[in-house]
């Protein structure tokens, strides 16, 4: 099975980091995977997105044009990518930042007030991981086992104190 995931939002929301987490989780599970960021002159406040492909077979194109799973953390991204999602696909919306609903009826939509939950739980920069927690629970793109291992891998050496809070954010998403 191949799952094509597109994560999109503003630069600074941890869009690329969220994708990296899924990629590392896939690596631990021994799956084929690719992670491709949008790169360019963007910085905090600009648009950012990344393509993650997880598969049990060798991966052809790493560029996701029609995702099975779309994660959006700002309105321009929902406007831009809603119609690109495959019929039967899934859209995850950060409903504290996006005030409209998904228009399509042939996809499943989940609304998570991730940014509000992150603020309430004193982890304002981890709305991305709350979204990912929910994606993993609903779509099973990777296993919920061994989350800690993947978090340890992706949190850089100088931010080791942030491991626990990342795990907590994933849990909040999973349980929402």
């Amino acid at each position, binding site marked *: 099975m191949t799952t094509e995931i597109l994560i999109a939002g503003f630069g600074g929301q941890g869009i690329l980091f969220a994708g990296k987490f899924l*990629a590392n989780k896939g690596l631990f599970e021994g799956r084929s995977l*690719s992670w*491709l*960021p949008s790169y*360019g002159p963007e910085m905090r406040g600009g648009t950012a997105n990344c393509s993650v492909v997880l598969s049990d077979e060798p*991966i*052809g*194109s*790493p560029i996701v*044009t029609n995702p099975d799973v779309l994660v959006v953390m700002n309105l321009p991204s929902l406007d831009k990518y809603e119609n690109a999602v495959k019929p039967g696909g899934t859209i995850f919306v950060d409903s504290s930042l996006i005030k409209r609903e998904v228009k399509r009826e042939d996809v499943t939509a989940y609304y998570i007030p991730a940014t509000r939950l992150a603020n309430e739980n004193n982890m304002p920069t981890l709305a991305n991981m709350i979204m990912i927690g929910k994606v993993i629970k609903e779509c099973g793109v990777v296993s919920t086992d061994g989350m800690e291992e993947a978090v340890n891998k992706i949190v850089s050496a100088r931010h080791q104190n942030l491991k626990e809070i990342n795990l907590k954010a994933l849990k909040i998403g999973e349980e929402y």
Partner: protein
Amino acid sequence: MSKVLMKGNEAIAESAIRSGCRHYFGYPITPQTELAAYMAKRMPKINGTFLQAESEIAAINMVYGVAGTGKRVMTSSSSPGISLKQEGISYIAGSDLPCLIVNVQRGGPGLGGIQPSQSDYFQATKGGGHGDYHLIVLAPSSVQEMADLTALGFDLADKYLMPAMLLADGTIGQMMEPVELGEEKAVSTEKKPWAVTGTEMKRKHNIVNSLYLAPDELEKKNFERYEKYKTVEENEARYESFMMEDAEYCVVAFGIAARVSKNAVVAARKEGIKVGLIRPITLWPFPKKAIAEAAGKVKGMLSVELSTGQMIEDIKLAANCAVPVELCCRVGGMIMSPDEVLNSIKKLVGGAGK
């Protein structure tokens, strides 16, 4: 060895270090900067040299200098920066020295853009600088190949005493995939008989030079080099063949375009179209025999590339008018979707049937 997750640009750098390269000279440019950054971090820790030169031109001439001493050396840049390096590359080729040059291509011409492209194919495979010469040109299509072909590039450059180029693109440079890195090789201490390392007053001095004012002497040098190029063409052409066994149509693509094409070939097969893919891994030497053989069997060929049609010329030469060769391209940093390639395959099937 277990697999690690790395960006393509980082995989090149780590593989170069493991191949015994301890000298890197460069100048930053998107989308290859991670490579230089990786070298800046690692080289000082392993007794190597990382030097950010004042310009691309300075960097390639530093490469020329180290190459003359017989040590493994490399530089990297992206399209506009590689244009600046051409004079130095021509001098290195003219002095028959080995080195590795990495081009993580972006859209052009001119300053162009920073998104992926394959539009430096002509520059890489047909010389690039002035004079009669070739580079060994390797075209990675995955992060794994970024590592593997870096190692191969150093080996081939040493074997044939000529510069090798890794012709990648922004996508493969920026993406992360699991990669298995080769064992670390010890830095070679072998003294090359031609290298300029000091005579210790024990031998005649060696000269590294590309200047031959006597035309008969220069002609002789050129012909000798062309004999060498023939050997490389005979022995080193590499390619991957995908679903070609019973193919009636053949897609030819390299690098990221080959990744997209693979999806299209699989989709076309599902619709009953017997199509396969030949992916050149070496662009020079171009896998002429494989293309010629395929041209003898199929009804049509399709070149998929991120240029307005550069590799297609080599495909047509190799196919020798046996079958129609069509083009599917996007340029300027845009990348075709698998659907666009599929549509081009269908057009080819329709056209060739008439």
